[in-house]
């Protein structure tokens, strides 16, 4: 059973002025400390680069952590980050590992800058203007830099909590009487004057979301943590309820601030159930009239039903999530294997589609992880080439089949169909067609006699008696398959490997190989 991470975002419900101040201070301190580490690291970046690669040549956050020695840890105390020093180290190491990886790949990446104070940003602003007047930088470059400066100036980085714990970092609590949830976040050190003795009103019962479901008790003494009420939707609530039964699924969190509102983003580890066996195929394609069209066919390719789903003009991420949820439900109810278009290098030729490539690919990603959680097979992506000009009845694919950008009119069999429906139906039948498509073995005349050839799989066979060679033919194919797997490392480096591999698999999977080959 594999695992996946899910992030749920919970809003901090109407924090008081003092709580806001505490959170702002904590995030500011965190950001300053983070930037301090970045500044230190930039002077030793070459050394860090050298020492932080693992045996496979990849940058490891764990190795970068070794650079952060005891002295540095002591220096960080000046930023009052004691409650989250561990988290800070891990967050920093991950960020730096990410930056070094990008650089190693040759991708253009600026050295990370997480925080700039308002004074520093003013200084930087003056420098940029000077560059402009002295013509040492282009207008667009300076404009870009100034925009980044505005975005970063005085704005803190989100505060990372690296573990779920009742006594440090963060955890969650539940009030059964009011059906409310709270976050307990450690933000203050022992010297912080804003610590309070009391965090909740008397008589309120809070239970830890933990294995022992311990009841929260307020002991004497001033607390280094805040208890923050949370607000969220039903979708997030479902996950919190899951966490109640299995608290170890809560891993890490981040405290963020956006437009004067505070959020706690919690990362949860989801165990995926093993997929249920599918009985049908569901093609989900882009549409012209609607956002997506879907067609459900049985394993023989017979259309069971079809439909479409609409989307608002905004096409926001949340809208696409809702679309994905609906498709998951249909797929679950009908035990479908979802098939979608692979819109990366090659398109589907659809004119004026409702969803652009980005939206559609986003939909795919969302369906991919939702399907794991819902015990469905991951969606399979296939080429979208020719999807909307292939006749679903006779299978002929031709640009002449497009009557208009909404209607398909086959020039081979006279079939007419809405292009949206044709696309999703063709998509739903793609795997069936692929499985049915025979591997062509060409017969050629040669001085030795008739030869059977297929260049894609590297097959060449000249039988003694071409009219009676079925057994020998089978043996030759078996030898070819064995040789392929014995030399798979070498084969994988050759061009056309994937095509050859899929053909070999097809030959292997069929008991009677003559069912999947066609001699021409």
């Amino acid at each position, binding site marked *: 059973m594999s695992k996946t991470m899910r992030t749920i975002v919970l809003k901090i419900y109407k924090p008081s002025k003092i709580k806001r101040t505490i959170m702002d201070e904590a995030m500011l301190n965190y950001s300053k400390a983070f930037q301090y580490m970045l500044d230190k690291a930039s002077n030793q970046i070459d050394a860090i680069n050298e020492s932080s690669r693992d045996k496979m040549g990849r940058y490891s956050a764990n190795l970068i952590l070794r650079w952060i020695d005891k002295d540095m840890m002591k220096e960080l105390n000046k930023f009052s980050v004691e409650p989250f020093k561990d988290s800070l180290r891990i967050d920093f190491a991950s960020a730096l590992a990410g930056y070094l990886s990008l650089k190693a790949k040759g991708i253009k990446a600026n050295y990370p800058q997480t925080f700039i104070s308002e004074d520093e940003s003013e200084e930087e602003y003056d420098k940029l203007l000077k560059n402009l007047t002295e013509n040492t930088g282009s207008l667009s470059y300076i404009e870009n830099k100034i925009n980044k400066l505005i975005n970063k100036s005085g704005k803190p980085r989100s505060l990372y909590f690296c573990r779920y714990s009742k006594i440090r970092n963060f955890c969650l609590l539940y009030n059964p009487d009011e059906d409310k949830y709270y976050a307990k976040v450690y933000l203050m050190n022992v010297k912080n004057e804003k610590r309070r003795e009391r965090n909740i009103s008397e008589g309120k019962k809070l239970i830890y979301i933990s294995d022992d479901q311990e009841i929260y008790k307020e002991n004497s003494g001033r607390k280094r943590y805040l208890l923050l009420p949370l607000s969220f939707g039903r979708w997030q609530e479902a996950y919190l309820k899951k966490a109640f039964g299995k608290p170890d699924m809560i891993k890490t969190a981040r405290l963020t601030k956006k437009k004067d509102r505070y959020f706690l983003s919690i990362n949860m580890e989801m165990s995926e159930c093993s997929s249920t066996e599918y009985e049908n195929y569901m093609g989900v394609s882009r549409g012209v009239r609607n956002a997506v069209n879907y067609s459900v066919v049985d394993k023989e390719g017979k259309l069971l039903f079809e439909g479409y789903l609409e989307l608002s003009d905004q096409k926001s991420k949340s809208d696409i999530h809702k679309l994905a949820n609906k498709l998951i439900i249909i797929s679950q109810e009908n035990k479908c294997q979802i098939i979608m278009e692979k819109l990366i290098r090659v398109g589907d030729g659809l004119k004026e589609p409702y969803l652009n490539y980005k939206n559609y690919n986003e939909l795919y990603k969302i369906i991919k992880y939702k399907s794991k959680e819902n015990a469905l097979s991951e969606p399979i992506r296939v080429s979208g080439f020719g999807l909307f000009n292939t006749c679903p009845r*006779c299978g002929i694919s031709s640009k*002449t089949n497009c*009557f208009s950008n*909404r*209607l398909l*009119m086959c*020039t*081979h*069999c*006279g*079939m*007419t*169909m*809405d292009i949206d429906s044709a696309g999703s139906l063709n998509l739903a039948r793609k795997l069936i067609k692929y499985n049915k498509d025979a591997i062509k073995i060409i*017969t050629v005349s040669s001085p030795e006699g*008739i030869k059977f050839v297929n260049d894609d799989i590297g097959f060449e066979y000249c039988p003694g008696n*071409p*009219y009676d060679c079925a057994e020998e033919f089978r043996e030759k194919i078996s030898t070819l398959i064995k040789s392929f797997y014995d030399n798979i490392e070498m084969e994988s480096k050759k061009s056309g490997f994937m095509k050859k591999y899929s053909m070999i698999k097809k030959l292997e999977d069929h008991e009677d190989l003559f069912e999947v080959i066609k*001699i*021409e």
Partner: protein
Amino acid sequence: MSIFVDVDYSSVNKYKEELCGDKVEVLRNQDSVIVVLTDGLGSGVKANILATLTSKMIGTMLSLGASIDETVEAVINTLPVSKERGIAYSSFSVLQIYYSGECILFEFDNPSVIRLAKGNFMDMKKKCHNINGKTINESKFKVSPDDLLILISDGAVRAGIGNSLDIGWQWENVKKYACKIYRKDISAKNITKLLLSVCDNLYEKKPGDDTTVVTVKIKSLLQVNVMIGPPADRSLDSSVVNRFLSEKGKKIVCGGTTAQIVSRETGKEIITSINYIDHSIPPTAKIEGIDLTTEGILTMGKTLEYARRYASSENTVEDILNIEKEDGASKLTKLLVEESTSVHFFVGCAKNPAHQNPDLPLSLSLKLQLVEDMANCLKSLDKEVIIEYY
């Protein structure tokens, strides 16, 4: 006679109507082929009667020797007009194609005939006549082999209204589609079937109006010669083969023994294919100088089945498309029903020893019956058929 005029037509009735309000007449005489398409006003029985009366009138006059323009004038003068709608009770198109290639066309209130020359649309110059307040368009032009003339009724132009197309398929789009589907070897039947299939699909299988398509394809004469079975008298092998090979047109050999005889007499090798495209049909072979060499009875039996389905008035698009396959029976069917304008059978009457086994249901009479049935089927498709027995 220098050209062959291949005519095919088909209709779909208005939804829930038993009778079609369109009528087609095809008249063949010594020097020309006349095609008449009439469209009765309204639908159902009344429209059928009106269309039939008009087409019969035209057909009778022409077959009794009247000229086309006299016929048209006579019909127009007598054609009643609906008092309510102010239009004639029937519209019509009359097309006469002489075997020399000269054509004359009269159109009254029907959508214009679509003319394609080698797949390209050709506009026709029209001369307008006003007879008794009605406008008749006359066109004169010349056609060549591979040219197409497509007559359609109003139902085709309106296909899709209220469904997938707001203002119907429209004449311009019918013309574009015809240009798209054109290929040199496409048959009149194929085109009729395709256009009608589109109309039926646009109407979502519930036609809003009677829809008829008539396709006229001009073809060069092509005789297809079929030698099936060895001669009863072995001493005639050489003369029969020589006669067969001396015939103009395409040559087909059916049967293993027959192929061996041809191979022996010509000195050309038989190259057998090992490709079983269809497991129920034996593979074909190749002999230099012969266009197609197939197995005998099984292939001919399958060919007859395909040909009957092709010729049937209830054929489907699949029946037409099936003969495009690569197996022996499909290839033979295509040559006989689509490519040929005449067919000459050379039927050998030798008894096949294998067929004399009482456990097998096959006999010489079966072969002869197959050929007879095939000949009848081909005649129904307006092919000229000759059978010679040896």
